[in-house]
């Protein structure tokens, strides 16, 4: 009963207003390429310092959830993930927009984000203490295997040639090693340049790799960027609902994956959405349509990345270990408000915690009307803007978004150069997704690998360190399943054809 009354406190007029403002601000910031959810939360944290703790947390949670969802607009409409967690949304969202279904993709993204957000919030409410204990058992070796599991997704992302997918990932992994090494602090591949010491900034790289090729091809022809929508069909809410119903198991599985990945400290929305996309593709009867505008692809990624919001708060509140990067910023805000994370959040400060969780539910529900309203105008305006305005506007947003990440003009140069390299490589059959995956997973894999190697050396058995723990073995089993299942399915679909040809 106490829990319910604390949660009902989130319904006060001031808290509701803060949730509305937070969601709208989060959606708008998240929709701008280069401005991640982390940045949205970080930029607006000072605004909350003067507020009561419940109100401050509700507003930050609303900004976070809105920004993760807002990232899908740019992913769907201009093939540029507004936030890193929307990378996988580009795979099917943009092809849908290209054929005139951008309105449906935005509606699906809104519905999926709401469902994912609600599942994450329910998990935060019910499973927090139990799941946080399991996450504590993850050591460096488990993180290494988790990164390897992420890399096996390349076979699902390489669109045609798996070999070229692995080459792209190798290039991404090598790029992730530029700068000061994660262990040992050696300077690697900087070639005397002080700018390269800081390494290749991931968000700048992914803006370049995804956005610059789109701009290059946009100016090449006079034809329209996206197919215009048919008149008078609105936001296609009914169609979206029926597709959601068809993909209900996909949505539920993706929400669970998103929540589970977010509980692992540091993993975040980008890995959650990639893993759930791969799983959706693996299990779908229409797996050959993935990458060509399959609605289930958008449902999987958008459900998963919004589920990371609630899931990520579990280790943040219970252990004080941020589940995702924006959680780290919110953790800082909690400390400023005078809160100590840990079991106290569910004992002494239980009122604030449950009011916040109530606020998270409200913000997630508010995302539906606010998102549909903003999304409708976003699609219509992107379709009707002439190319002579669209190209310089997107180019300007990529430049200013990249610069603002570290206030570094060199990041802008790296973004443009990587974009051009990505465009050339794409013509040679190497798609940007494996490169980005390598860049994101590189530091996680390297840290886990080197720490595991050191631990193995100290204990006298390197093999034992990597293959001797039950959790590691469980992830290795997933890696093998991820690699062998597509091969087995390809063999199974080929066999009947060969038999038929043979007769």
């Amino acid at each position, binding site marked *: 009963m106490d829990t319910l009354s604390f949660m009902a406190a989130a319904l006060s007029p001031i808290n509701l207003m803060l949730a509305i403002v937070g969601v709208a601000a989060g959606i708008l910031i998240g929709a701008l390429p280069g401005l991640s959810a982390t940045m949205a939360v970080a*930029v607006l944290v000072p605004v909350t310092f003067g507020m009561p703790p419940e109100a401050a947390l509700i507003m930050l949670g609303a900004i976070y959830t809105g920004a993760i969802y807002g990232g899908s607009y740019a992913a769907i409409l201009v093939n540029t993930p507004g936030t890193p967690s929307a990378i996988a949304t580009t795979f099917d969202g943009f092809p849908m927009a290209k054929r005139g279904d951008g309105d449906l993709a935005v509606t699906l993204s809104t519905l999926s984000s709401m469902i994912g957000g609600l599942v994450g919030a329910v998990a935060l409410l019910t499973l927090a203490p139990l799941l946080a204990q399991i996450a504590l058992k993850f050591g460096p070796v488990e993180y290494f295997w988790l990164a390897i599991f992420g890399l096996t997704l390349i076979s699902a992302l390489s669109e045609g*040639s798996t*070999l*070229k997918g*692995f*080459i792209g990932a*190798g*290039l991404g*992994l*090598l790029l992730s*090693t530029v700068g000061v*090494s994660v*262990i*040992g602090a*050696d300077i*690697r*591949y900087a070639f005397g340049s002080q700018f390269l010491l800081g390494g290749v900034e991931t968000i700048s790289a992914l803006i370049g790799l995804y956005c*610059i090729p789109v*701009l*290059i*091809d*946009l*100016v*090449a*022809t*006079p034809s329209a960027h996206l197919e215009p929508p048919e008149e008078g069909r609105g936001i296609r809410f009914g169609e979206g609902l029926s597709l959601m119903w068809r993909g209900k198991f996909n949505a539920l599985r993706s929400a669970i994956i998103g929540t589970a990945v977010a509980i692992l400290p540091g993993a975040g929305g980008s890995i959650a959405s990639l893993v759930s996309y791969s799983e959706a593709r693996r299990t779908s009867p229409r797996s050959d349509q993935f990458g060509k505008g399959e609605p289930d692809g958008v449902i999987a990624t958008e459900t998963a990345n919004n589920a990371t919001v609630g899931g990520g708060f579990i280790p943040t509140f219970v252990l004080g270990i941020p589940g995702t990067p924006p959680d780290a910023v919110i953790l800082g805000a909690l400390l400023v408000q005078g809160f100590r994370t840990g079991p106290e959040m569910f004992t002494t400060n239980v009122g604030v915690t449950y009011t916040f969780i109530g606020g998270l539910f409200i913000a997630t529900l508010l995302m539906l009307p606010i998102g549909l309203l903003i999304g409708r105008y976003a699609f219509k305006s992107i379709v009707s803007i*002439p*190319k*002579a*305005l*669209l*190209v*310089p*506007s997107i*180019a*300007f*947003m990529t*430049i*200013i978004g990249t*610069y*603002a990440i570290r*206030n570094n*003009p060199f990041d*802008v*140069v790296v973004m*443009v*150069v990587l*974009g*051009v390299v990505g465009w050339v*490589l794409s*013509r*040679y*059959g*190497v798609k940007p997704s494996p490169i980005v995956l390598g860049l994101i997973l590189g530091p996680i*894999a*390297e840290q886990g*690998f*080197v720490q595991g*190697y*050191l631990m193995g050396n100290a204990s006298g058995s390197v093999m034992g360190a990597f293959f001797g723990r039950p959790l590691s073995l469980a992830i290795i089993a997933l890696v093998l399943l991820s690699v062998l299942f597509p091969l087995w399915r390809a063999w199974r679909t080929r066999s009947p054809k060969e038999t038929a040809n043979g007769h």
Partner: protein
Amino acid sequence: MATDHETSTLDARPSDRVLAVVMIVIATGAIVFSRDMSIMASVFPRTIATLLLVFSAALLIKSFVVHPRRARPEPGSVGRRLGLIAVMLVWSFALKWLGFLAASLISAAALAVLAHYHAWTPRRVGGYAIALAAIIGAFYTLFAVVLNVPLPVGLLWRQL
């Protein structure tokens, strides 16, 4: 007579060989430049570079053994594509010297010319100029004033 399959795709052997050779050079370079690093810092990039070397060599061999085909690239103006690349590169380098606002206004105008395929009328020029100035002005204000991002003002203007 060419089949549909042959006209919609291209022979991928030459491009695969170029890609493989470039990647072999990059991987070899990564291994060579890792010699001065400590073991802890070099073990990961060396492993990755070796794997990249193996995959690239496999692609090279594959291009001699089988006849892979690739999708025909999207058609369009090469000049305008190269123009966009040039403008973006100049824009990124000019930020420091011309400042964010001047570099962005000039580059955005150049991109608008590159992306426009119809006749320019005074009304269209005026309309587009106002719209672009408003978009750039609004985002500049958002970042520089509201979000407090220190956008470069330009070394050139400081010297004048």
